[in-house]
Structure formats: structure tokens, C-alpha cells
């Protein structure tokens, strides 16, 4: 992928986001469900309702609303949340770090776990025990992240009460943070007791997010390793006296990594999407959890802002994955 390709991808981002914005906007306003009705107290007068409607611009025709919103959005103003009465931008910014930390931790766990399982699987290749690995991976894959979240919650939160099952941090903990990247900050400032407490809260949700992805990575990697091991250059390496472990690690693995990142990387966005439910199940204060509330409350500005945030993250992730694949495969660089 040469520079021309990169530029083309970057240039495609605004139109895609525009398309996303349009769809959400129209969807929310076309179908029944009135945000004002959701938030007014009973017994409010029609004048109050009208005043609120005007305040949020909901009395205008839809095209007008969109143009207004677009104009403001381009200056960084994404409106005010109807249910929380704060700027959408500030709300999203406040909760985004929590989700990013969770997703990052989950991705790390998934990659390490996936690698280990794939290595065990390829080591057992051709032997009977191989189907244990394949079967295990199949089960891990079949169960989606939110189900894992519920299972882990049951097992390690309720039946064997090892870990907390709600929130991001223990409310009694005596600490103030400067940024919202709690884990990062506590690690950087050396407050390992705080980091430990944070991890206690994060481990179950991250694991839930990680397990299906780890299974996917393991399956793709193992298949790629097996395919690469059958290639001529790997066979010839055996004829040159290299041992199988050495061949797998130094010759085969770099080749197998390419399709793994290409196919698996696409699915990282699924992990990000999974934060919506998993955060809800564990009452973790990230943007996923907030999204569900926003939808239940028909909070149009907030929903729009969140959907756009997710879209930006998805697109950025896909771009990064493609860049990594180009880095790994010298054949792609020279065209």
C-alpha cells in the first residue's frame, strides 16, 4: 500500500462519516419516539413542552436541523445532551478514556492468549490431541462477548466471589485523577495500589471482550501457521537441518502473521462494539454504557455524537490494521 493509497483512504473518511451522520439523523427523527416526552416531568404545561422543543431545535424541519447540527459539529460543538444537560463533546470526552483502556487491555489479553493457543495447536499438529484445541477454540468462538460477560460475572463475581462486578473503581478509594485515563495515570505515577484496584474491576469485562477475539486469533494463526509450514521454503529449511521449533518461530511465524493480522484485524472493531453490552453488564462507566442510556432516553444529540465517535474509532482502527499489514509484508510495499 503506497502513499497514494493511504491518502485515498484518509480522503474517504469525511464522506463516510457524513453518510453515517445522515443515516443516524434521519433514523432518529423519522420513527416514533419523542425525547422531550421522555424527559419532562408529569404535569408539565404545553408551553413548557414547546419551549423545550424550541430550545433543542426540534421544532424545525429536519433538513434545517441537520444543517444546523452539521455547522455546529464542524466547529466542535455537538450540542447539548437532552437527558444529562451537558455538552455532548464534554460527556463523550469524559467517558472515552475508560472504554479505550478497557478495549486496549482486552486486545492485549486476546493477542497473548491467541498466540499461546495457536502455538500449542500447531505443536500438536497431526496428533490426536489437536482436536481438543480445535474444539476448545470452537466453543470460545461460538459464545459472544456479552455471554462471556454474564458467565464470568456468575462464576467469579457471584458463585466464587473473587472480583467486583460493577463500576470502574472502588468508591472508597482515596485518590484524585487529573485525566480520565485512570489506569495509565496510576501506572505512570507509581500508584500501584490504585492500579491494582482498577485492574480488579477491569479484569472480568476485559476477559469477556478478549475471549472470542482470542479464539479468532488462535484459529486464524494456527491455520496460517499450518499452511505456511507446508510451503516449499519451510520444507527446505528442514532439509537444511533446522529443528521444527526453530523453523516455526523464525521462518513460518513472520509469514503466518500477515493473514492473521489482515483477517483478525478486521474483527478488532467487533471487540470495540462489544463494549456496549459488556460495560452495561458490569456497570462500567464508559461510552458503551452511556450509549445504551442515551438510546433508552431518546437523547438525539448524545446518540449522534456517540455513533460518530464509534464510527471514527472503527475507521481509524481499520486504517491502522491495513498499515500494519503493509509493514509486515514486503511484497505489498513494492507493488
Amino acid at each position, binding site marked *: 500500500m503506497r502513499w497514494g493509497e493511504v491518502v485515498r483512504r484518509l480522503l474517504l473518511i469525511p464522506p463516510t462519516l457524513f453518510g453515517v451522520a445522515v443515516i443516524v439523523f434521519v433514523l432518529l427523527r423519522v420513527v416514533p419516539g419523542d425525547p422531550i416526552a421522555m424527559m419532562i416531568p408529569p404535569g408539565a404545561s404545553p408551553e413548557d413542552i414547546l419551549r423545550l422543543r424550541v430550545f433543542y431545535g426540534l421544532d424545525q424541519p429536519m433538513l434545517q436541523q441537520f444543517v444546523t447540527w452539521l455547522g455546529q459539529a464542524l466547529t466542535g460543538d455537538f450540542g447539548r445532551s437532552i437527558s444529562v444537560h451537558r455538552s455532548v463533546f464534554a460527556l463523550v470526552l469524559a467517558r472515552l478514556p475508560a472504554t479505550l483502556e478497557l478495549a486496549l487491555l482486552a486486545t492485549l489479553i486476546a493477542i497473548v492468549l491467541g498466540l499461546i493457543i495457536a502455538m500449542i495447536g500447531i505443536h500438536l499438529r497431526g496428533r490426536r490431541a489437536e482436536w481438543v484445541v480445535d474444539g476448545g477454540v470452537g466453543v470460545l468462538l461460538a459464545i459472544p462477548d456479552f455471554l462471556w460477560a454474564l458467565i464470568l460475572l456468575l462464576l467469579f463475581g457471584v458463585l466464587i466471589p473473587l472480583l467486583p462486578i460493577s463500576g470502574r473503581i472502588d468508591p472508597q478509594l482515596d485518590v484524585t485523577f487529573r485525566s480520565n485515563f485512570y489506569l495509565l495515570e496510576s501506572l505512570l505515577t507509581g500508584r500501584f495500589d490504585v492500579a491494582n484496584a482498577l485492574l480488579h474491576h477491569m479484569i472480568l469485562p476485559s476477559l469477556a471482550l478478549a475471549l472470542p477475539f482470542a479464539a479468532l486469533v488462535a484459529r486464524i494463526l494456527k491455520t496460517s501457521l499450518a499452511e505456511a509450514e507446508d510451503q*516449499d*521454503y519451510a520444507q527446505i529449511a*528442514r532439509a*537444511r*537441518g*533446522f529443528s521444527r521449533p526453530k523453523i516455526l518461530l523464525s521462518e513460518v511465524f513472520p509469514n503466518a502473521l500477515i493473514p492473521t493480522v489482515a483477517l483478525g484485524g478486521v474483527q478488532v472493531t467487533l471487540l470495540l462494539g462489544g463494549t456496549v453490552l459488556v460495560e452495561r453488564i458490569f456497570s462500567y462507566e464508559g461510552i458503551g454504557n452511556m450509549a445504551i442510556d442515551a438510546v433508552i432516553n431518546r437523547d438525539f444529540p448524545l446518540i449522534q455524537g456517540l455513533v460518530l465517535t464509534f464510527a471514527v474509532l472503527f475507521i481509524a482502527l481499520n486504517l491502522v490494521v491495513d498499515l500494519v499489514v503493509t509493514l509486515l509484508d514486503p511484497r505489498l510495499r513494492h507493488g
Partner: protein
Amino acid sequence: MTTVLSVQGLQVAIGKGAHAANVLRGVSLDLQPGEVRGLVGESGAGKSMLGRAVLGLLPANAAITAGTITFAGRDLLAVPERERRGLLGRHIALIPQDPMTSLNPVKRVGHQIALLLRHHLALSKRDARERAAELLTGVAIREPRRVLDLYPHEISGGMRQRVLIAMAFACDPALVIADEPTTALDVTVQRQVLQLVERLRQRHGSAVLFITHDLGVVAKLCRTMTVLHAGRVLEEGETAEVLARPRHPYTRALLAATPRADRPAEALRPVPPALIESLWSEAFRLDRLAVAGRP
């Protein structure tokens, strides 16, 4: 003189149980130090299998069911794994068939050569790189240092094959198995490759087992030859002798089928396997060995 390679009564079968089929049926072959032996036959005759068996590279569904393979006095089938791996790549080398797929596509050429050198000869990184450059010069590659830093897809097929040849002779092997190294190349490049192989062979004094279906190549390069068909040795001896006065009807048919500039070639009339079975006999073989001057 001690034979470099001695294969006795080798039997290789593919598949298991009732579905098994013999690919090699009692093949015997002896190679002296420095001898260049051509191994010819149609596709499927088992020539590649023989090479693979010596290198221990049989496919997963194939197995040696009888016979021995001895290299410089050591029984390759009984030797511990570690020792065998020490021999392969160093004392027994392979020139593979397809230059397009025989090099690792994601590693630079220099890295792959150096890896081999450091594994067998325990050279330092810098020494290995030096030696790699020398090896490339030895196979007539200009600008060796530039090529070292290139990826396989950045050099031509002919150049890749030369790199593979360089890697085969890199550790001064006593035996080189060339598995149809010219088949995947243009005719013009073939000649260069053959010249290279001959030159390097002389320099290192290696014995070469040249597997090919091309009688012309055998005529040019190999002093002795073996004809393989359906897993059996049909004829062997000095190349000049076998080509001028072939004794087995199959060899004669093979020669007649070879394209020549002076007359149209005949299609290789398939000799029924049963006929070959009956023609092949111990007496036949002993007879020619006596002629070749071996006990």
C-alpha cells in the same frame, strides 16, 4: 574409497494398509566421492521420492518400509535426530526445484544465507554476511552486497536459483542432491545454471545426485546415470555407455522419445508394467555391473 552415499534395497510406500502403494521398490544406488550421477525417469517414477528419502523429507503419508541409506558410513535411518540435523544442510545439501517458492518471501536474501551459515558454522553476524557476499560472487551474481539486502521477489527467477545453489554449497557438502533444478527455468538460463553447478562441484569436490527427466542435461553434466521406472532401477552405468548402447527396452524407448534436431521423436510407447517386471532380473543387473567394473 569410501562410498559417499549407499542406498540398498530401499522401499517407500504411500498410504496405509489396504490402500498403500509402493513408490520405490527395492532401489539400490552407490555414489563415490565427487561422482556426478544423473537420476532419470518419467514423472512419478520415484526419483524425487528417492531424494526426499535421503534427506528425510518424505511427505506425512509416506514411509520407508525396507532398505538402508548410508552416508559416509553412517546409517541415516538409525542415527539420532540431532546428529541427522547436523548433517543436513552441511554435509548433505539440496538444490530445490522451484526457485519461486523455495525462498522465504518475507526475509531478505542475505538474512536467509546468513541464517544457514550461522546455524551450521557458528559464524558471527559480520562474518556470516561477508561469507554470504563471497558465496554470491561465487555464483556469478554482480553487486552481491546489494542483492543481500533485497527480498526474493525483487530478484529474477534465475538469480534466485543461483542463490539456492550458493546456499547448497555454502558449507562445503560432501553430497549435493539436485532435485530438477533446471526444470522451472528457461533454456537459456538452464545452461548457466548447469555450468555453475559443475564449477562449484569441482571446487568443493562434492558428489552430486542430479535428479531430472531431461536426458540432455544428463548427457552434459553427469558421468554416470541411473534409469528409474515405476520405483525400480532399470539400468545404470556410465552415461556415454548407456546413451550409446542402451540395454533395457525402456531406456531405448526413452531415448527414442527424446526430441532431437535431426529426426522426429517417437512418442514414448508405454511399456506394460507386467512386461517390465518379467524383464527385470538379477541376472540382467549383475551382467551390467560386471561391465562397469564394480564388484
